[in-house]
């Protein structure tokens, strides 16, 4: 026999409980309502996008209170908050101040790219990211007390700076 959920009156009740306090009574709930009442705690897999969306809803937009729109693709920051993905590469510049806290939050505080540079990027950019990467490497080597590696990296930095 299937019983409708007493809370939402829509879904089939699959959780059946007997309360003893304050008085003895039987309750029949669906899984969602049981979860809402804190009777069952579901270990739901949370996707990266869900975490991101929760974050942008709670934090990123609050500070500004107003909306921004990208002049290139027309997407607004509010739309991004709902969708979780941006409209075009220019959104990074258009939403800059609103996006930055979110980027830092997602990347352990990092704000600067230190990896690969596309071959067509101009040589100043390549040199800049190359130097940043080497400095990070130098710092890591010093922290690991790998002084031989640190000396090698330091020499590479010197050559690059002089070039």
């Amino acid at each position, binding site marked *: 026999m299937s019983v409708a959920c007493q809370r939402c009156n829509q879904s089939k009740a699959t959780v059946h409980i007997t309360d003893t306090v304050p008085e003895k009574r039987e309750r029949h709930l669906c899984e969602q309502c049981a979860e809402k009442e804190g009777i069952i705690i579901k270990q739901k897999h949370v996707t990266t996008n869900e975490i991101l969306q929760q974050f942008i809803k709670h934090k990123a937009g609050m500070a500004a209170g107003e909306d921004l729109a990208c002049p290139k693709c027309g997407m607004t920051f509010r739309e991004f908050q709902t969708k979780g993905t941006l409209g*075009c590469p220019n959104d990074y510049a258009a939403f800059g101040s609103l996006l930055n806290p979110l980027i830092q939050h*997602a990347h352990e505080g*990092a704000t*600067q*790219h230190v*990896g690969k540079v596309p071959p067509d*990027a101009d040589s100043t950019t390549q040199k800049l990211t190359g130097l940043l*990467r080497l400095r990070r490497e130098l710092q890591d080597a010093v922290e690991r007390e790998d002084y031989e590696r640190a000396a090698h990296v330091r020499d590479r930095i010197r050559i690059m700076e002089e070039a």
Partner: protein
Amino acid sequence: MTFDELWKTPGEWLRGDGPMSDVVISSRIRLARNLADQPFLATAAPSDRTEIFRCVTDAITSTPAGADSIVVDVEDADPIDRSLLVERHLISRQHVAAEGARGVTISPDETLAVMINEEDHLRIQGLRSGLQLDNVWSDVNRLDDAIASQIAFAFDKQLGYLTACPTNVGTGIRVSVMLHLPALRLTKEIDRVARAARDLRLAVRGSYGEGTEAVGDLYQISNQTTLGKAEDAIINTFSEMIIPKMVEYERAARQTLAQHHAAQLDDKVWRAYGVLCNARRITSGETQSLLSPIRMGIHLGRFDRFDIAALNDIFLYTQSAHLQKLLGRTLDDDERAAARADYLRKRLG
């Protein structure tokens, strides 16, 4: 090679060899890339998607690394063929569910694949068996360079490669290693290990990625942070620190089981074999769960009816799309369960 030849043999990642292959099933690296002069897919018009698909496939097939690629139009593909590509880890479930012009280019040995118009314009993927992240990175890096010599990618000197979702910005790299951890699950240490991995800002997921359960004790460990660290630094953390440590824990747990609970272990392995040989109806999930102790049994030298190559073959061809492809017809859930059991009895009988 054509698509029709592709599915007839397991891909390189299911060869079952490579370093630490007793625990590490496969190593994968994906790079997210977008064309500089096109909108991201959230605002792209159908004609933009078509243009991106055409432009990227042209670029890939005209490079030496991608010249002999198989190009699959996922939008027009048969639903079974799409699922087959998911089972082979060549496209994601999100790519199947996406809309409009989209596709994938696949190298004949399946070690390289480029998903076009998934969440980003390109997801360049390298995949190999065992712990081979350095080789995978060298494949992916080379293909990325070759494509970049023809297409300008969206790039910013501060934020790196610009991606549709800000969680992938920077290197756009996602390193994922698939591990088989049956002993850690049996000894109930898996939660502790998963927690430790999550503390290191790593994601621990089921074998088909985001939102999937760990069926058959297969877990995917991947990085979440893509900005502020160089590709080789991220890769080295996996190959030199995280993965060897997890392999060590799993091996130790297997030894504990073999030394102190040998009878229970053998019972689990051989009982699984018994069910696979005799079932009359079996789901793909149950098949994978039963293959898990057998895989461990083979590596511990406690099971000898077939080897890892045969097990991987069964693992692949009992999945729904492969099974239907093998039988040459579409089957509903009920028919599949019976057909799978028949296939297993013939294979193992």
